[in-house]
């Protein structure tokens, strides 16, 4: 049995930020980071660039051995957590080893959610994109394939579809909902993105569900849609969403809804057990209820709070709640979204369409959401205005006509 004061399961954004926060308050407490991955830490967000070849796999690494040595943290790869005994304060690994901890952080993130479609139970080979190994295998498969089908028009699906199209494949994307990137963008914004994909030869099947996938010859496959249509492919990527990696906690007593339920300092219902990042179901800024928001900024913020609380840092301030953020590049263009940018009926909507498109959503004279296509803005500034609920009633006209300037001005005035 190995022992450590701080045990962190996972090695991505939430985990790395927790490490940093712990070390800020506790220089010497022993620390161990376990991850089921075989590589040094990297971000899942880099993977589309690994697929395209823009980032070499070894350049995708965020922290090396020197970093862990300097920070007094043991890094253990190929270590898959399979069980938690919260009474005995131990985590069991797949290889039979176990670790005893004083304080535990669950930062196991999320993994692809595979829809219950006949054929996707393992009988038809398909790709997913969440780990470096996934990315390298997709990159390898890409070379030999001619026709690809991507299930899911979310961030992961669209990134991959672009990669595949740029690599010369004939690509089809099937999305259940009427538009791509639902939740982040309204129909007009999504429309611009969809048009770009269509221009680049990508076929979009919107509002369509897959009813079955079969592969009679075991190599190429047929994707069957609910309208009776069928698409042939020799490369299938499933990107229909993710789900928190919390199965290993079953029976441990940790409360799990869709993700691990946490309070405003990322504590679970069990003593000395915290959770942060994509695995956690934490407060949503807009609704105040616990929700899943699987993005880097929330993973980082939650990781920081968890680390501070674990180390007893007195500067800890409770979580204000996660705000959805999407910074998306497609074919060299820019689409950005923050907050309730796609919402209808939650306030006053101001849309502006010219060379670029922007959509500003206000409620009670305060910003609640902002999205744009082909017109970059300062996402972080708009995020602050949303989170601080800055009253814009005194400068509303300025804000709507010149949001970038006015946002910069407000932040400069308020925080010199």
């Amino acid at each position, binding site marked *: 049995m190995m022992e450590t004061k701080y045990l962190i399961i996972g090695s991505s*954004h939430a985990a790395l*930020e927790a490490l*940093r926060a712990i070390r800020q308050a506790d220089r010497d407490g022993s620390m161990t980071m376990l991850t089921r991955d075989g590589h040094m830490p990297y*971000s*899942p*967000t*880099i993977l589309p*660039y690994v697929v395209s070849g*823009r*980032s070499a796999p070894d*350049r*995708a*690494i*965020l922290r090396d051995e020197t970093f862990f040595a300097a920070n007094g943290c043991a890094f253990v790869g190929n270590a898959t957590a399979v069980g938690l005994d919260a009474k005995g304060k131990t985590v069991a690994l797949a290889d039979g080893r176990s670790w005893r901890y004083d304080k535990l952080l669950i930062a196991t993130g999320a993994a692809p959610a595979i829809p219950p479609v006949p054929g996707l139970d393992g009988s038809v080979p398909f790709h997913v994109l969440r780990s470096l190994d996934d990315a390298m295998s997709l990159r390898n498969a890409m070379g030999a394939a001619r026709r690809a089908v991507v299930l899911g028009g979310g961030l992961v699906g669209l990134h991959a579809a672009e990669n595949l199209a740029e690599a010369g494949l004939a690509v089809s994307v099937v999305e259940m909902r009427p538009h791509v990137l639902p939740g982040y963008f309204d129909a007009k914004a999504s429309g611009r993105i969809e048009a770009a994909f269509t221009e680049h030869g990508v076929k979009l099947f919107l509002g369509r569900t897959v009813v079955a996938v079969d592969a009679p010859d075991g190599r190429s496959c047929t994707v069957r849609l609910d309208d009776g249509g069928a698409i042939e492919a020799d490369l299938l990527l499933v990107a229909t969403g993710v789900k928190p990696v919390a199965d290993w906690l079953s029976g441990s007593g940790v409360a799990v809804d869709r993700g691990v339920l946490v309070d405003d300092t990322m504590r679970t219902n069990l003593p000395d057990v915290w959770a942060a990042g994509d695995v956690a179901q934490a407060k949503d800024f807009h609704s105040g209820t616990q929700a899943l928001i699987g993005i*880097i*900024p929330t993973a*980082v913020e939650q990781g920081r709070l968890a680390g501070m609380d674990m180390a007893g840092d007195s500067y800890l301030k409770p979580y204000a709640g996660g705000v959805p*953020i999407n*910074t998306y*590049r497609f074919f*060299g263009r*820019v689409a*950005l979204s*923050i907050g309730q940018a796609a919402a209808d009926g939650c306030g006053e909507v101001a849309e502006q369409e010219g060379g670029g498109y922007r959509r500003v959503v206000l409620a009670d004279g305060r910003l609640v959401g902002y999205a744009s296509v082909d017109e*970059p803005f*300062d*996402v*972080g*500034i708009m*995020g*602050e205005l949303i989170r601080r609920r800055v009253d814009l009633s005194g*400068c509303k006209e300025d804000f709507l006509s010149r949001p*970038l*300037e*006015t*946002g*910069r*001005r407000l*932040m*400069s*005035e308020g*925080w*010199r």
Partner: protein
Amino acid sequence: MGTAFDTIAFKASACDGCGKCMTACAEAKQGASRISIVSGAGEGRFELSLCRQCGDPKCAMVCPAGALAKDEASGVIRWDANQCVDCLLCTAGCSFGGISVDSHTARVAKCDQCDGDPACVKACPTGALEWVTAGSVFKKYGDREDMFVPGLSGCQGCNSELIMRHAMRKIGRNAVLATPPGCIPGMGSVGYNGKTGTKVPVFHPLLTNTASMLAGIRRYYDRIGRKDIVVMALAGDGGTSDCGFHAVSGAAERGEKVLYVCVDNEGYMNTGMQRSSTTPFGSWTSTTPVGEHMRGKTQDAKNLPLIMVAHKCAYVATASTGYMEDLYAKLDKAVEASFRGFSYLHIYSPCPTGWRIPSSKVIEACRMSVDSNFVTLWEYTREGGLRFTRSPDRPIPIRDYVKLLGKYRHLDEAQLDHIQARVDEQVALLRMMAAEPVAAE
């Protein structure tokens, strides 16, 4: 000791929105300007958006590509163009618009401080942008030996303690120090029970004879051929401008080779906050109380450093802990001049206890005193005459400064006008002495 870095500071009150900084930046970087000046809340007001080179950079923390990191030597958040995958997540991390899309390249761009020589600052004609090198000062001297014992019993947030520790850290062990009665010895620097509170020879003269005793000590060192000892005083304003003045004036007139540092907290704070001749008009002190009839001090402060100029000292300067790089530069010159003649350094020092300000606001008070021209920063040499070391142009109203201080809480409009008028008068006189044109209005 931690780290500190040089920085580009912005003084909104001095910015006229000319945009020269942006042009200079765009030219230097061959792309979009990294600095952006935007219209402020009112007519003729401007605001700034620029990378603040955060100590805790959120742009770097949310970067999935390892493309952003704080440079440990310069403090600049470096952007690595080869690592960057253009995902723009960093723009979601920054609350100030410090990293944003450069439309020329469709990539992010941010300020790199031009490797310590920022083009925007050089192009700024009004002084609204300033390259502040206090960080370098801190790094250079922060690890030097502190010449005072830890745990001096100064009040919380004492600015005079800051001055003592900074000054002696810079001057070092080769010094003989006089600390006449006042806060400085009072907080324990002369010591207890036969032990001194400093690591240099220190003594406690009378209020009246500090400068005379130092003169004797210097003459003795001259006689035995020790040319390397700084003979100096850390004295209060009372001990310098009132009870000790004849000795100071005499030593200056004789050209004694002494460094005399006056730490001016505008009164006898150590003994219960009585007024001194440097206490400004309107101040509450325990001997100029505020009540039904009295409204604080009724006379103006004596401008002691100007009086020292009239002595034609080898060096006279004023300084403030609000502007450390300026203070340090003057300490260097003052020490050097003290081997040639009388060297006088007047350091303004807000007193949290006696002035009724929270200790967290002391440095802000220092800065605002300078920014309002209540305190002017200048130096004088016989060869070069009087010269401002910070521009007195575009001052903030005196009202903004005094409202920070509890000792002025009772001031009425007439008193405020009086103070403003005296400050303007003082600056006009100094400008004349500095042979600078007096402002038109």
